[in-house]
């Protein structure tokens, strides 16, 4: 635990120590930068600008490391100024533009304005006056209400540009603008006075020039104003020249030419030499005039050379500019071409896409149509199939119905028609009798009810299976004996109904007798090869009962009468048949009564019974 605290404390101490060290190093660098910057200012003020080149790079590096943008910008200004002064204009332009960009990037309006001021100065030396005027207007506008001395400096340089351009009245006005905003305590008033004198001399206003020069107190000119001093004396000499004070003019000029500083300012030097030549010329000192004219000529040549270099620079820059413009133009054209191509490509692409879309749409449409047609076709086909199926089904159904009907009308054991069938066809059978009266006996329909005798005994004795076999065989015997047009119905249980068409009563008797005989003589074979004798009894009646009144008795009543006959046959003998028909008397009673009381009517002979039973029937 104690160990951990130690380690922690040590770490904390170490961190504190290093931050103190870093802070100390930072503050050292800051101090160094401040020192350098102060020295730079002092050197520039003393006119030792060139010496600053020795440490300018280091200073700038410090400024960059400490992010001191203002100092960095100033370092560019100073280097640009030095480069300009010694003729390296291209570098000067480059450095000033660099300073301008930097000032813009940090948004320092004052430095932006100063950058334009330096650029104006450069352009003036490069004799690009229009540009110089444009540049100087920016700092004028910026400083006019902020800093009078700076604004005055800008007006001064505007004035100098006009003066160099030879627009003297404009130069005068700019100088006046400057003078209006300064106070005498400001150093710049010296520059303005000398400048004013120069302008007035150009306009030939010698008095005004002298007055302006009279305002200059030379004691106020320090080391940084060497050129101004020279310009002052040049103007003074000129003013003497213009007023014909030739000797004084020459003397002033000669003193200045002996001053080594004049050698640094070629322009002023040449002007002094020319001034002396002109002075001597007017004094008639031709040799001296020639000497100074020659010197002037040399200086002028040198100036011309310098100017020529400037021109070359200008031409180069123009050439580069033109070249750049040409390149830009070419690029522009190229771009336009590319844009056109691009547009064309885009158009082509768009067209292609449109085409594609059309194709896709077309295809979709086509496929849809094909699909629809196919669907319709399939549908139609399906419908046809369906219809076909419906028809088939309907047919099948009809058949099924038929079968069902047939089944429902058929007795499954004997395969004879059942009572339902009979009820469905009875009206058709009777139709002939309903349409017209029956006059003859032959045209009757005989209803015979045939019942197997003692069938219950068979069932009870041999079982239902045997009963069924008997029923089958019995029905087969009947089926074989009847005519094809006759109707045989399993009436229920062991009872059968036979409808004999178009038969007379006596014919019916014969048929029924044949049936009885065939049954009685048939040997019924059973499952276990046993044989059996079976008899049947039959009752029958003819429809219509009365040929004269065919509708007096319904077929149901006729069957009831036949059933009565069956009873009589059973009761009297078995293996017999009894037919009931109308007696000789006319049956006037209600048919219901006759049928119900058929035994009475048999007795009364209103009904007559025929039978195979040989003894008298017992009613």
């Amino acid at each position, binding site marked *: 635990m104690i160990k951990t605290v130690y380690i922690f404390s040590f770490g904390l101490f170490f961190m504190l120590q290093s931050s103190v060290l870093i802070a100390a190093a930072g503050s050292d660098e800051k101090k160094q930068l401040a020192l350098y910057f102060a020295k730079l200012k002092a050197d520039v003020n003393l006119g030792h600008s060139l010496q600053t080149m020795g440490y300018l790079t280091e200073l700038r590096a410090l400024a960059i490391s400490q992010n001191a943008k203002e100092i960095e910008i100033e370092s560019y200004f100073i280097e640009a100024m030095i480069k300009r002064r010694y003729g390296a204009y291209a570098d000067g332009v480059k450095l000033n533009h660099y300073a301008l960009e930097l000032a813009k990037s940090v948004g320092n309006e004052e430095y932006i304005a100063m950058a334009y001021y330096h650029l104006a100065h450069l352009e003036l030396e490069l004799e690009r006056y229009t540009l110089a005027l444009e540049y100087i207007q920016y700092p004028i506008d910026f400083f006019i209400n902020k800093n009078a001395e700076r604004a005055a400096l800008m007006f001064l340089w505007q004035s100098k540009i006009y003066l160099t351009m030879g627009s*003297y*009245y404009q130069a005068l006005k700019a100088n006046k603008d400057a003078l209006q905003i300064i106070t005498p305590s400001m150093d710049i008033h010296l520059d303005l006075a000398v400048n004013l004198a120069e302008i007035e001399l*150009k306009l030939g206003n010698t008095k005004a020039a002298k007055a302006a020069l009279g305002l200059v107190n030379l004691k106020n000119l320090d080391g940084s104003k060497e050129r101004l001093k020279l310009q002052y004396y040049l103007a003074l000499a000129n003013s003497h*020249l*213009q007023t*014909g004070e*030739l000797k004084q003019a020459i003397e002033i000029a000669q003193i200045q030419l002996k001053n080594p500083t004049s050698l640094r300012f070629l322009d002023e030097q040449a002007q002094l030499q020319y001034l002396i030549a002109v002075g001597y*010329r*007017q004094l008639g000192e031709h040799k001296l005039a020639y000497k100074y004219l020659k010197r002037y000529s040399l200086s002028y040549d040198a100036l011309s050379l310098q100017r020529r270099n400037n021109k070359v620079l200008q031409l180069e820059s123009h050439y580069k500019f033109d070249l750049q413009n040409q390149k830009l133009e070419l690029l522009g054209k190229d771009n336009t071409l590319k844009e056109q191509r691009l547009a064309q490509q885009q158009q082509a692409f768009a067209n292609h896409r449109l085409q594609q879309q059309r194709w896709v749409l077309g295809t979709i449409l086509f496929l849809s149509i094909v699909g629809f047609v196919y669907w319709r076709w399939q549908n139609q086909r399906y419908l046809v199939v369906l219809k076909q199926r419906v028809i088939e089904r309907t047919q099948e159904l009809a058949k099924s119905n038929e079968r069902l009907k047939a089944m429902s009308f058929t007795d499954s054991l004997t395969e004879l028609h059942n009572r339902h069938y009979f009820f469905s066809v009875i009206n058709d059978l009777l139709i002939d009798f309903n349409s017209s009266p029956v006059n003859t006996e032959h045209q009757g329909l005989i209803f015979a009810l045939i019942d197997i005798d003692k069938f219950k005994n068979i069932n009870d004795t041999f079982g239902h299976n045997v009963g069924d076999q008997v029923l089958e065989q019995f029905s087969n015997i009947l089926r074989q004996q009847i005519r094809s047009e006759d109707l045989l119905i399993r009436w229920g249980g062991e009872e059968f109904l036979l409808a004999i068409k178009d038969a007379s009563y006596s014919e019916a008797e014969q048929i029924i007798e044949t049936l009885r005989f065939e049954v009685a003589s048939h040997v019924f074979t059973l499952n276990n090869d046993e044989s059996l004798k079976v008899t049947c009894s039959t009752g029958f009646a003819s429809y219509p009962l009365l040929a004269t009144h065919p509708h007096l008795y319904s077929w149901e009543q006729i069957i009831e009468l036949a059933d009565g006959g069956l009873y009589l046959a059973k009761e009297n003998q078995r293996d017999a048949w009894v037919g009931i028909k109308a007696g000789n008397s006319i049956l006037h009673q209600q048919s219901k009564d006759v049928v119900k009381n058929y035994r009475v009517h048999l007795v009364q002979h209103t009904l007559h019974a025929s039978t195979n039973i040989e003894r008298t029937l017992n009613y």
Partner: protein
Amino acid sequence: MKRFLFLFLLLSSDIEAQQPLIIDIISSENFSERYSAFVNGRDIMDITDFSPSTDGSHLEIVEMVLLQQALYLGGETKKVEFRPRNWVNTTEFDSLIDGRSLMLARTMWHEDLLDYRGSLYVSDAVIKFGQYEAGLYVSVDNQRAQQLIPSELNQLTVVVNPRWHVDWRALVNTPVSVISYIGPWEDMLAMVETQVVDAMMINFSVSDHLDLNFEGKLFTPLKNVKVILPDTRHFAVSKAHPQGKRVAQALQRGLTVLSERGMIKKALQQSGFINHQTSDWQAINQQMVVSQR
């Protein structure tokens, strides 16, 4: 002896009074013929109409007449005799400085005289600041130049002799592109004719249509454009010449009289130097004038 001396002085002064004033004219320009044609036997003092009788710049003739009238009006009644001399250009003042010449019968730019004011008497301005206007003459075939609109004047190349300081200053203060050439005036015109350059600054022609016909070649000024030559023009009289002071004083007096009578302006207007046809044309270096105090 005293008597003889007096007689001598009287004679000599009379002789001096009878001697003509010898005033130089530039031999190469040779205006004698045109001058004679213009004067046409009239008494100089009777000339009040300065309307041109020939095409071409007329300023030289007008100045010769005005000079004589001024001298006369200033009290210098001696006859003036013009002496053609071989002046390379008007800014060579050697003979004036030395007193070998009395004066030149031409006005000179003030700025050329400034350095020599110790040796020369400089008259009041005959042509005032802003009065001197010139056109930018192009070949009539140079359609491109003639179709330039004012904002396109930076595309116009104008040849100028850098020794003509005032011309140079004037053009530097315009939007045109200045091409410097030191050589004969005729060469410069040929440069314009062959379209090596577009234009040259020339005094407006006195012809009605302002066109300039030089040896069969036709030049025309850019329409609605003029340039102000930003200086004044003065006569200069030698201080070293024995007659210099008196002539200079007479000249100054006479010019004052002429100026008061409005004769100078009238002469400049009638001769076409101050050209009424271009009075409403745009001076493309107007700013050099408007700012004067």
